[in-house]
């Protein structure tokens, strides 16, 4: 922060939250951006670090892995080996992605589905 300096512990927490909110989300693969210092590098998407698919791809790198959220979404419920992580759009949640015409742009509109 340029004009406010967090002094006590609560101020540091408040500043941290503000920074996170401003930064929104940013794919890990994009790496740190000097233009967006507030961005939070957060693994999003269905692949948690205890499920396969996150660590490395077949070449030993990370480029071929599912990209968080933006690309994962449809791959997950059409072709992924971990279907339990996304709603079943064939029978139980057919309208799940109705408000999401383009996953890259509209992923925030995807409904939360409770089984």
């Amino acid at each position, binding site marked *: *922060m*340029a*004009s*406010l*300096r*967090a*002094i*006590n*512990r*609560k*101020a540091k*927490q*408040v*500043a941290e939250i*503000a920074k996170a*909110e*401003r930064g929104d989300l940013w794919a890990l693969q994009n790496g740190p951006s000097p233009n967006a210092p507030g961005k939070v590098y957060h693994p999003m998407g269905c692949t948690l670090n205890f499920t396969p698919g996150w660590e490395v791809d077949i070449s030993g790198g990370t480029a071929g892995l599912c990209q968080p959220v933006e690309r994962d979404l449809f791959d997950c419920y059409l072709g992924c080996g971990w279907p339990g992580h996304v709603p079943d759009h064939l029978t139980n949640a057919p309208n799940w992605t109705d408000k999401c015409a383009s996953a890259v742009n509209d992923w925030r509109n995807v409904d939360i589905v409770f089984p």
Partner: protein
Amino acid sequence: MSVGMETQTQPYRLGEYHSFSAAGSEFLYLVPSGSIFAVEGIAKLVIELLGSGEMPREALVAKLLELGCSREEVENTIQELTEVDALQCDLQKKEPLAVPVQEFPLQRIVLNTTNQCNLACTYCYEYSEDKIAQSAGKEKFMSREIAEASVEMLIKESAHRPNLHVTFFGGETLLNFTVMRSTVEYAKRRGEEEGKRVEFSLTTNGTLLTEEIVDFLSEHRIGVTVSMDGDKELNDRQRVFHDGKGSYDVLVPKVKQLLKRHRTNSIGARVTLTAGVSDVRRIYRHLTQDVGFQAVGFAPATASPQRLYHIGGQKMDSILDQFAELAAEYRDYALQNRQHGFTNASDTLKELHTGISKAYACGAGLGMLGVGTEGNVGLCHRFVDSPIGKMGSIKEGGINKTARREFLNTHHIGARYDCHTCWARPVCAGGCYHEAYINQGNTSAANLHHCDWIRGWNDVCLKVYGEIAIRNPEFLNRFAEN
């Protein structure tokens, strides 16, 4: 950052805050978050411009540009101030969360091991005219069974908490040392069985301490608070035996023995200030330098205004001045990395450092409950055996969850309406329920008679905090949670 038309014309105003300066820097204490920020650059200008009232965003920006700030600086500053709620507009105003706690694991019980006392201090909230406890006709001493059942209640109601605390209280606690001793041993054993660490503390008038008791306290690392009001002249004004004889001469050799032999936990003095006993500096010097306490805390006696020993407004002002002097001394010590024993300062500074924002004025009814000699559970030790603040009974199934929930709903800061415009509420939250009952007629009322004093004291502590934060920030690590 793109700003829509609607935002441009929205009036911007300062959020709730208290500003102060220390060590040449300007600070904001933000309410209700309890965060403290140093204000730098053009944030100072924004605060100055909005100090006299709200202003549409575009007018604010135009003024700042006029003053020579760059547009980028201005936008960044407005964004930063808005993010921490120092600056507000209706579009971005966030509704504060004010959800009363419904379930809360118990952490501490205070066992009133006896309702008897060998002293007859005039101001005692347990026996004076302002008492709320109705101990007449009740068992005089807590039995071993009740004490052990209370420990079981603590363990059962503590849920996942790993660290528990039992405080022994009275009357004069040491009149029932037998049960205190057996309870410490019992609680330690049960704690080990349940995988919980149990710690202990004792509040006593000190007159019944013996070598055997002191060694026991030391062996079990029991924290001790001795009630004592200063030198012989001051202490003996209120703290007398039943025959009217002062307690100082009996007390002091025993306290010195305690301070010498018990080195495993903190030993503090707790001073009750009254109309005739309000020379804070003199008392502090005596208790630290002549008696040897490392920690001394002060609180005014809880008393209704008609009592002779009640402290009026003017005396309280003088007490605040003396508190400020001791707090300044605390600051000077802190700048040299030395520990100062004025616990009113260290307690408040710790809360400011954490940035506490209290939903409840204290832990009573929340993580702490008191238990009377017959097993009546009360909000805290002051409410034990009183029809007010009754929270169940050890003999009748422990905590009355309905009463506790009702209490938490009606005593939440959200229900203390008088506090909603006060900048000191993150730390104060309306103050002691007992004090409120005696002086305002209702436990849920805010202690309005102390508001100015509390704001004054918080301002003193914020300045001390700011100075330490700038000049010796390392010292603040001492306030880290254990």
